[in-house]
Each structure stands twice: as structure tokens, then as C-alpha cells.
């Protein structure tokens, strides 16, 4: 289910979400698994001052040769974008997207303060998801937060999406390589996270 090797060098991945959704843990797990497989990676978590509910984007560059890639992608150069939140996916798609990009998005919005207070409108969700599909060469919509709530905690949405990302066959990573890192990094929550990971794989038909 994983690709054998990079289809492009560097292969550029963005994980976009909102502070508190587990962006940083997710990008760390991916980076760690890739280094174990012998790749050079840079992982930059762009979160500024946000503890909770600010926009967060992790930029991951994966390379076979170069150990000195810069931390940020440049305009229009994403190969894969994962959105823990639909508007955050769109935000990153608008800056880093291109006609070949692949996207995986969680369907559950997290409303910005401006929307909560009624000053600005959150885009119509169905239209937003449609637009994401239109602007992607291939796209998956995952009800990750709903599935995570079924597992008892919305925080599992990130690992469900990680499962979906593995299942999308866009990275040179398989379930086993992530399992190894999960065991190492989250020994206490390992079992539940494996359930979440498998759920994500299942949701993209793997």
C-alpha cells in the first residue's frame, strides 16, 4: 500500500489544522518513521504563538539525497496536503496547491473566533469540500472527528487521518513503520492509537 520510493525529490507534504488538534504530534510521527527508513526530512511546525485554536501548518520535506532542505515550502509546491480542518486545508491549498496536488481532509470545522462572534462567515461546508475536490488531482474526505468521538476523544482525529494518509499510497511509509514509532512515542496510548490508525486506513478502503 505504500509507494516504494519518492515520486519526486523533495516530496512535499503539509499537515494543516488548528492549535490543539495534534498537528505537531502527527508531523513528528511521520518524520520519525521516515528517518528510520533512511530518508532526510525537515519538519517545520508553523504555529507562532497559538496554544489553542490558531492556524497551524506543518511543512514536511522528504528527500533521498539532500540533508539541507529549507524548512518551508514555497508557493504552489505541495505534493500532498492533509487538513485536520477544512478551512485550514483550503488556506494551505490556496497558497501551496497546484493541479497535481493530492488532499485528505477532515470534514469537521473548527470555527475561528470571528465566526463564533458572528463577524465573519464560515464558508458553506459542502461547497468548501467540493472546492477542495476540484482543486486536487485526487482527494479524500474523512469524517475523522466524528470517528474519533466514537473512540471517546476528538484528539484521535489526527491518527485517524494519519491512517488515511498511509492508505492514500502517497508516502513511502506503511502501517508497520508507523506502528513502530507509535509504540515508541506513545506507549500508554498505543492500543487506542492503533485502533485509530486502522480506522483511518479502513476509511480510504485499505
Amino acid at each position, binding site marked *: 500500500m505504500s509507494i516504494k520510493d519518492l515520486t519526486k525529490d523533495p516530496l512535499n507534504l503539509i499537515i494543516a489544522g488548528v492549535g490543539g488538534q495534534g498537528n505537531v504530534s502527527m508531523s513528528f510521527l511521520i518524520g520519525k518513521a521516515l528517518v528510520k527508513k533512511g530518508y532526510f526530512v525537515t519538519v517545520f511546525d508553523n504555529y507562532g504563538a497559538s496554544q489553542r485554536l490558531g492556524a497551524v501548518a506543518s511543512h514536511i520535506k522528504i528527500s533521498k539525497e539532500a*540533508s539541507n532542505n529549507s524548512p518551508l515550502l514555497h508557493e504552489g509546491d505541495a505534493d500532498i496536503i492533509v487538513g485536520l480542518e477544512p478551512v485550514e486545508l483550503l488556506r494551505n491549498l490556496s497558497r501551496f496547491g497546484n493541479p497535481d496536488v493530492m488532499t485528505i481532509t477532515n470534514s469537521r470545522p473548527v470555527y475561528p473566533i470571528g465566526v463564533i462572534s458572528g463577524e465573519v462567515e464560515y464558508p458553506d461546508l459542502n461547497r468548501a469540500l467540493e472546492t477542495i475536490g476540484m482543486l486536487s488531482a485526487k482527494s479524500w474526505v474523512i469524517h475523522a472527528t466524528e470517528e474519533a468521538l466514537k473512540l471517546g476523544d476528538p484528539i484521535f482525529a489526527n491518527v485517524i487521518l494519519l491512517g488515511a494518509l498511509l492508505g492514500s499510497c502517497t508516502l513511502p511509509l506503511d502501517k508497520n513503520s508507523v506502528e513502530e514509532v507509535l509504540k515508541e512515542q506513545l506507549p500508554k496510548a498505543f492500543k487506542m492509537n492503533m485502533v485509530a490508525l486502522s480506522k483511518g486506513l479502513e476509511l480510504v478502503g485499505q
Partner: protein
Amino acid sequence: MANIEIDAPETNQLLLGNEAIARGALEAGIGFATAYPGTPSSEIMGSLAPIAKKMGIYAEWSVNEMVAFEAAAGASLANIRAISSMKGNGVNVISDFLINLQMTGIGKGLVLVVCDDPGGMASSNEQDTRPIAKWLNIPLLEPSTAQECKDMTKWAFDLSEELGMVCMVRSVIFLSHTRGNVRLDKLPKKKKEAYFADIYDVDNPRQSKFTCGMQFHPYKQSEELLKKFAKASAKCESSPFNWYAGPDKTELLIITSGICWTYSTEAVKILNLQDKVGVLKLGVTWPLPEEFVKKHLVKSQKILFVEEIAPFVERSVMELVANLPPESIRPALHGKRSGDVRAWGEQSLDLVIQSIASVMGIAYNSRQSRSIEYSQKVREISEILPHRTLTFCPGCPHRASFWAIKNALQLDGRNGFVTGDIGCTAMGMISPGSFQVRTYYAMGGGVGIAGGFGHLGQFGFTQPVIAVSGDSTFFHASIPGLINGIWNQSNFILAILDNDATAMTGFQPHPGTGVKATGESGEKISIEALCRSLGVSVEVCDPFNIKMTTATLLSLMAGAGGTKGVVLMQRECELVRAHKDRKKPYQMYIDPNRCIGEACGCNRLCTRIFSCPGLVWDREAAKARIDDAVCAGCGLCADICTQEAIIREEV
């Protein structure tokens, strides 16, 4: 998150720039580490402290940068290698000690790590700290990758020891917060022994080497420093971290340092200009390795400087070019001064591509802009996307504190205001605090400036002033301002929003928590007892009791002897609480019969003004709604609804 103490030489690990700096310090054999938390530097101590005991190192979160650096200097004078790390602003705080330490020199290797924040993503400003190194004659090292963060920190200790002076390693947010592959080296096993030797100078046998002034006339110490610095210049010429990559003759020579080297190299590759453009990377930017730079200046008629933030290397090279012999060919210098490189904010791959393309007179189209239809579509989309402004977290006690402060100031009716301070409390200047904070500068600045306002009564000033400080900020820099205010009888209230954590930077402990950096318990210092000992009136409130907190503030404002006193608003940071217990205290819901939406007349007080991310305005139902995935279950919002439509249910 990574294990920086792993004894696995020659293996590749994924380390954060800051973790790599910490690893470099371990490989250099440090025995002492100090820091005050500050983004983007916090993970250096964050990764050293938990392993300090195991590695036989002393590590502490200090109450501020000044004492952190002074303590590290103490270790250095007593034969122990020491590291002290901080954000750029911290170097301002230590500068008085630092300038004097430069006069005497040090003992064992002493490395000052400073992490700047170009763009000011997590700071009150975007200062470039490098000019301080130039001002004080401190060797300045700028790593470019996570690998170099480790290797250069290690080298900085050798350099510092050899020169007998402190060395500065300067990182920036995009380096400190990027994870990258790091190939590890061995960890030293040598035993360390501390001893402070009385070292006397031959010329001044009655004065210890580690003292400033007196019989050591300052000008003589300056002379010594300049001699030492000349040695540093020679040493830095041959640094393994300076190098050139590119053709022998180039159309353009890029001179760059730090993270900007990665942007430059990648941009040249993306623009396919490897045959025409060379990149000169400087690992040591002060003292400028002049001979090394001169050797490469002849490669091109055109130089482009790429660095963050100030034109620091650019100006040093200008000085060098000005001193070239008269017959020399002088290259054209492009950079921040010429406007070819943005002179403010952080650099990025996009910006560097633009700068190079413009200086080379070529066009560049990205994968996105190559498709006109696609780029037009995404431009339309980006315009309708709602921004995410900073806010207090769901359940944050500061939302309650600012709610009470706002109520009290409005009820008082004399147009009172808040002087703010650094940390999470600063968000009281934006909507979650209902725009209460009117001034905001530096650590401890809130109480200091309030002390000034509070003396203006003789000029007709009647507005009540409330200085706000977080608990960690209080220990860092608010105490002198409070004492000064009490002593000089200034009229202001100090509200200490005590959430029992240094929350903004990642929940580091401080004296009020009683926990030390290593996780062991230490002396718990009571903010309340400390303030009471100063003889000021001290009131303690739970900010979630909005009524009582408001009433307390109001009564202090109406005090007969003027507006004076300390209000200690105590409640644990919600993120700390939730980390210990993920269970919500309350299950919240809206009673749809009681919430009458726009008809209420409250003008959506709950969602529009209170603005907790867990409490949203449901446009379709035209009523408030709890978002269960976001709500922390703190129960506070139940107290602000005039219709009692927000229900909290015990879980």
C-alpha cells in the same frame, strides 16, 4: 519529544533545532545549564532538564534571563562548561552583566544561545540580536541546519575556552523549530570537577582577574579584550562552518548565513542557476572572516546578501569593501539597503527566489502560477477564508479575569484602563479580553508603566490603572515595579493572573509552582505572602467567581487612599488541568427554550463578546450552541447568560 541523551554515535536522529543545540552541549561535556522560557528558545532547556540528573548535569529554569546567565557564568568561572539559552529579548535583560563579563573573560567554555524571532510570530518585536555581539566583541556563530545546531554548539564551547570569552550561538524560529536529521557523535565520559581558583593578574596582584574596574582600569581591560578579539578573528577565518559552493566565476555571488543559507541554496536549484550563481555561507558572522570573504569577493561583479533580519553581514562586508586597496574592483552590493531583499520580517524560500530572480533579471513561475485558471481560482478562495485570530483557550481563567476587569472598569466609570505584560495575559489586548489592555511592551513593563500613570494625579489624572502580570512574569520582572510603586505611593492596582504555569511557552515551572526544572520539588514561593510582606493590601480571588472578583476590584478602585492594592486571581491553567485529567468538569448545553437568540436583547453577549471557542453562534438555529469537540466544560459561560439558558451539568 526526542531522546537527546541517547548514546548512539554515528546514528541519524530526527531532532528539533533546539534539541540539536542541547545535544551539542551534551557532546561538549557541559555540567551546567540555565534558561528562562521564551519562544523560540524554550525547547533547549525543555530537552536538557528532564535528563539532567541522569547525565550528571545541573539544570534550572531561572526566574529571569539575567540570573540564568549570571549563574551559568558562575559555573564557567569554577571550571565547569555552561550553557544559557534565551530568546532575543532575554539578551537585552542580561546586557549589563554581559558587558562586564566581557571585560574579565571567563573560565571554562560559556555559550550563550539566543533564538531570534524574525517576523515576531511569538514575540512583541522582531529584534535582531546579532548587533549586540558586534557591540560587545562576542564571537557570533550562526548555524544553518539542525546538524549544524549540534555541531556548532559543540564547537562554540571549544572556541569559547580557547579565547577565554563567552561565545554566542544565534538561531532563529525557523531553525529552532524545524526538525531535521542529525548524525550524533560520542558523549564524553570525563569527570568534571568544580573549583574557583583565585586568579590574580601579574600587573595587579591585589585584584582578582574576575573583577571589573578598580585597579584594573576599564580602558586596560578594553585593551585586553581587543587583543583577545584579534585572536578570535584569526580563529574564525578557518572555521569549518564557512564555505563556498558554486562555479569559479559567477554572475552573482550570494553571501548568506543561518537559515537563509538553506533558502539561498534551494532557490538557486529551483531557478536552475547553479552554473551562474555561487553561494558563500558564513557560519561565523562576527568577527567577519575578512580574508575568507575577500578571497571570494573577486568571483563576481554582483553580490546579493540574504540574511535575517538586519543588514548585519551586509554592513560588515560594506566596511570591508570600503577598506579594499584603491585599485581594487568593487562589486555592486545588493541587499536590504538597495531594496532587493525585504528589510523587515522573516525571509522565506519564496522571497529569496524573488530576490535572486529580480537581481538576475529572470522570470519565475511556480507550479501554481503556471496554470492561470488554477491560480485564479485559489486567489478567489483565499479571499473568503476567515482568519484565525489569537484567543484564550476554552476554559482559560484569563478570560474570566478580563471579564471581571472589564466589568469593574465600566462600573467604576472613570475611563480606567489596563497596562499589559508579556505572556498569555497579553491576549487581553485583543477581543477575548474585550480590548482592555492599552499598553504592552516588555517583561515587567506593565507594572512599571502603571507606576508612572499612578503619579499623575497632580496633573488632573483621575483614570484608574490596573497593571496585569502573569505569575511567571511577576517573578521575572514585576517585583521591582511593585516595590517601587508601594514605596513611592503610586496609585495603581496590580492584578496578578496566577495560573500556576508559564503557559505561553509550554508550562514551564517557576518559583510559585514549587517544582524545579528537573521535576523535583523545590521551595514553593508564595506570591501572596511575598506581596503581603511588602505591606500592600492583597486580595485573593478565584476569577471564575466573576461577581466577587469584580467587586474586589471595584472596592480597591474606590479606596480612600487612592487606587492601590494587589489582586491575586488564582486558577490553574486549563491546559495544565486537562493534561492531568482529560475529564471535563461539566457537561455544558444550551436550553433551546431559554435561549431566545436575537430576540433576547443581550446582543449575543455570549458568542459575540465572551467569545469562547467552545460556545458558537448557530446561524441556522439563530441560537447559541456548545461545540462539544472544543468546549472544555469549565462552566464559566453559565454565569454570563442573562436568561440562564446555558446549563452546566455535573459530570
